[in-house]
């Protein structure tokens, strides 16, 4: 353990230091490790879905290509770009929090939120098109389609749906840290909430970076 846990060093405690920690460093280390451990559970959570994806793609390789061709890779690509940009502004927001720059924090959190909302709007129009084309699994699914395509779309909706749910939660977190940043809660010693929110946001982006090629880029697009 580092000397940050030395109880003597806590001469004048920071107002945000919780009583069961020795120091702000220890509190920050606990928060970031906690978020990393949480992200491990998220990897396992999505892992079950990726496992199902692998199994069924091996079972129905042709249906997988056919079904993937039904997705709009241009909108998917646009959303990929949107999320990568939002990760950049999120990283800038964390840095602004570490530097204690309130204005930069607020601007970057706001841009991140707008980009996140843009992603969801695009996703909404994609989902809407699936309903119109009878590609939503269930009694209304187009019966003329090849065996296996309905499973592809089941996985598509579960995977992107849970991802979108994570985006919605992410937007809630952004709203919270925006308000806190507005009040000037964060400073160079206390920025753990911004940092762990950033880790979460980047993770949700990375999930999309995996989903996009696996779901959208299998079909013979443009051919």
């Amino acid at each position, binding site marked *: *353990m580092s000397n940050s*846990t*030395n*109880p003597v060093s806590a001469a004048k405690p920071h107002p945000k230091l*919780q*009583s*069961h920690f*020795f120091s702000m460093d*220890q509190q920050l*280390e*606990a928060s970031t*490790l*906690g978020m990393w*451990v*949480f992200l*491990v*559970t*998220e990897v*396992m*959570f*999505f*892992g*079950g*879905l990726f*496992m*199902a994806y692998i*199994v*069924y793609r091996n*079972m*129905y390789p042709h249906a997988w290509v056919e079904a993937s061709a039904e997705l709009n890779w241009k909108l998917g690509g646009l959303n990929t770009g949107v999320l990568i940009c939002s990760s950049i502004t999120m990283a800038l927001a964390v840095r602004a929090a570490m530097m204690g720059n309130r204005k930069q924090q607020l601007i970057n959190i706001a841009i991140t939120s707008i980009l996140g909302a843009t992603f969801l709007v695009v996703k909404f129009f994609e989902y809407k098109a699936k309903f119109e084309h009878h590609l939503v*699994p*269930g*009694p209304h699914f187009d019966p003329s389609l090849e*065996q*296996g395509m*309905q*499973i592809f779309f*089941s*996985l598509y*909706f*579960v995977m992107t749906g849970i991802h979108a749910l994570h985006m919605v939660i992410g937007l809630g977190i952004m709203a919270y840290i925006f308000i806190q940043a507005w009040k000037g809660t964060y400073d160079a010693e206390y920025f753990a909430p911004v940092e762990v929110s950033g880790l979460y946001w980047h993770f949700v982006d990375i999930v999309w970076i995996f989903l996009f090629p696996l779901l959208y880029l299998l079909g013979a697009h443009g051919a």
Partner: protein
Amino acid sequence: MKEADVQQEPSYLGAPYGLASWLLTKDHKRIAILYLISITIFFAIGGSFAAMIRAELVTPQGDFLTADLYNKVFTLHGVVMIFFFLIPSIPATLGNFFMPIMIGAKDLAFPRINLLSWYIYVVGATLTLAAVIMGGVDTGWTFYTPYSSVSSTTNVTTAALGVFITGFSSILTGFNFIVTVHRMRAPGMTWFRMPLFVWANYATSLVMILGTPVIAITVLLIAAERALHLGIFDPRIGGDPVLFQHLFWFYSHPAVYIMILPGMGVISELVANVSRKQIFGYSFVAFSSLAIAIIGFLVWGHHMFVTGQSIYAGLVFSIITMLVAVPSAVKTFNWTATMYKGAVVWDSPLFWVLGFMGLFLIGGLTGLFLGAMGLDIHLHDTYFVVAHFHYIMVGGGVMAFLGGLHFYWPKMTGRMYSEPLAKVASMLVFFGFNLTFFPQFIVGYMGMPRRYHSYPAEFQVFNVLSTAGATVLGAGYLMILLYLVYSVVKGPKAPMNPWGATGLEWKIQSPPITHNFHETPVVTEEAYDYLHAPAPTREVTHHE
């Protein structure tokens, strides 16, 4: 530490009073007590389902419960006992209470998340109880598809969502423990000075955070299939129901280690104490916990030898299953070696230690029978399997939980219970348990299948023995409940260290203050330094 000056500070139990102060507490010790009360309620509910099962099986005819009702009863027995009692049992109660104290911390790293985990548990448990009241669920605790997703008309969605939600309470507990062990240890508390109970809970937490999310997504897919027609496992659209079993057992086999690893941690504490001797092979016992956690993730296919999985996959799963016996045996031999030439004392913890070791041994060895691919074809889905996993989960897990509860009770409540009553109860539980489940090995080997409410008449004698044993077992559990509750009201005050044990938890007052320590301890000695341990004393000394 000078107890005399600081005894003015009230214990965690009394500061402050009031229901709201308990329901909004962030103190890990109070949350442990909340969990203890909740899991006791669920143990009673699960136990009453068990009583119905044993009552039905007294006679060969299905005369007490209809086949449908029997299906619901064994399903609910399994769901309640596994998800709402066994999985939270030791980690969320004894682990929550003692793990931070053992490493010299004031609390877990995330006290609010700790409280949140209890509330999530309550919400999940309430949903599952709602499923019971609405008419139950009949899929078996395993929720196998396509029965659970397509065929069953019972309340599968509600029960599955209850299990899904409760999973998050387990994830949050594991997550909190891992961060706490990494970041909250007191000065001088190195990894290899940590008590083995902490190591065991750490290994358990790894299983919780790696396994539980997988069962969460799996039961969520069942719910999605039933409610939204997203048919991932639906054979009608080309889905594979066996994929469900793979995902299910990827969690549910490691979940067995969530139930037994913390128990092994408890036994490591108790065995050193009753032998009054340093534990034999400390680092081997510590690493065997991690080995069990890791190997446990690679054996799920042994639940699926008869599903038509590849015979080569089956071979590999069979061999890896045998490997689990190695770290388990390391522990058992090391506990035995600890007792060898130890100054064994006949305190009540000894009875639980010996009971655990005997029952765990039988449960573990019969696990090797079931892990052998050929033999499993004969024993699959018979009462042999039922007996085996009850020996591990009840014989191992519950015995260790009760042993730990008795050992730590004076510290948790500040009261002593009656030693002679505790010894009698432990014997009742031990004999009742064996009478219940040993006949099931025989009747299972003879071919009696599990999950039927009627059976051929030649199996009756074994089932009558089993029900008689269950009655004794139930009486034993009831007796424990009564004298423990009585001790809280009328028991004599407990001293700081009634067992003469080592460890930071025995150097603070009973019950502890809210922040555990008056000043942060600095650790300078190895764990289990029984050469320098104080003598056991049941009397409260004048300055306490």
